[in-house]
């Protein structure tokens, strides 16, 4: 995804919301309000986003951002 310089992870979330997500059903599995919904783990270059400043993390060129769901089955 192409982002302007100086943008933070929050901008990425909103850009995904505005450009990639087509239906309300898909939106609610991703966001709750304007934040990531509980049960989704966000990783910045394979590191928990909490260690990187969460939504305020400043995106760098070639960053790999991963969104993955918590699994519960066993």
């Amino acid at each position: 995804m192409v982002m302007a310089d100086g943008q933070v992870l929050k901008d990425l979330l909103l850009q995904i919301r505005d450009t990639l997500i087509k239906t309300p059903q898909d939106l609610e599995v991703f966001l709750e309000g304007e934040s990531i919904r509980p049960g989704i783990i966000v990783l910045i270059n394979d590191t928990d986003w909490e260690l990187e400043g969460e939504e305020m993390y400043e995106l760098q060129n070639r960053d790999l951002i991963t969104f993955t769901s918590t699994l519960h089955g066993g």
Partner: protein
Amino acid sequence: MREKSINDLAKELELLKLENRRLSELIATPTVTSRETSQETTPDLDLPLSLDEYKRYGRQMIVPQLRLNGQLKLKSAKILVVGAGGLGCPALYYLCGAGVGTIGIVDHDTVDISNLHRQILHSNKTVGMLKCDSAQKKLNELNPLVIIITHPVAIANDNVFEIMKDYDLVLDCTDTPATRYLVNDAAVILGKTIVSGSGVKTEGQLSILNFSQTGPCYRCFYPSPPPPNSVTACSDGGVIGPIIGLVGTMMAIEAIKVVTGSYTVESFQPFLSLYSGYPQQSLRTFKMRGKSPKCAVCSTNATLTRDMVESGAIDYSAFCGKVDYNVVDQRTERITVSEYTSLETKGCLLDVRPKEQFEICSLPGSVSIPLAQLQRCHSEDLKGLYEPLYIVCRYGNDSQLAARELRNKFGFEKVKDLIGGLNAWSQEIDDTFPRY
């Protein structure tokens, strides 16, 4: 107090019975151990293991990461495995084979034939048996030196502490968020490390929680539960047997590492591993946050106590919630399968199960539009549907959500859904129709 001591006595009695059975089996098993012992062991040689144990565990004891010392730690360890299903079975099998001294199993469920593709301790012969008993039988056959204690109850607020208190390490092999929070809270309060695994479909996750009371716990990772409609169980979403088996196997590896001291408080790094079976198998290990200073159970500001769990003040089911399927009028907007068969005009029968399930079996003449697709489509996509419209799914839950969608969003009026779905159809109308 009185009740507790009776309880303790009963437990002790059970342990002694098990010990007795184990020893009787050892005597009954023809081995060369006794001859070897008498001939080759000098009385002065104070061996920490029996000669049978040296042979049995030799292949792992000569591995530098484990060694004799690790074997002795395994032997004195007591590990509790919560859940004897897809994760628990392989974990139990390897831990028992590895010579963990005492293994506890918690599971209230009985073996069903639909478990067998992944729950490798159970078999055709043990269908209908308690999973605890089925697992114990298999594990005794594998390694009679290990004491297996069974807890054939549903783990709950009022028994979790009693069950867990005597063990050193807990493996969370459960299958719902509510149970995972419960197991976490009790283990944190009792100061136990948790090896946690999970999986569904083609993926699995693995982590170590509350490591030595210094690592993050389940609530540090997930302070709020996921919305109930985002939670998929193996029975609904399906699971590839060896995928959940791999996660259970990885849990056994982590358990061995924890018990034998591979991790120290200084060296332990919180992690979450994500295994994917498809398209190319991969294991990614993520570096995770530490303990949360705001955690409700493991931080210095914790508010959650043992009393609150035991008294039921913490309601795990309510905390995690569940999907409300009863969204249509249960009396006027639904129809039983036998009422449907006696209708003169059958109308249009819409099957809203996922494509993979429709492909397995379907009623003749039914039209397939999966619920997920229905929720995303436009009215022109539904031109093929006509009234009266009858909706069917696997169990009669999704069909209600679909009926509401068709009524509210697309303006259908004569819509009813089949109570109990195709499962009820197979049980009540046509027993040659597959249940899967």
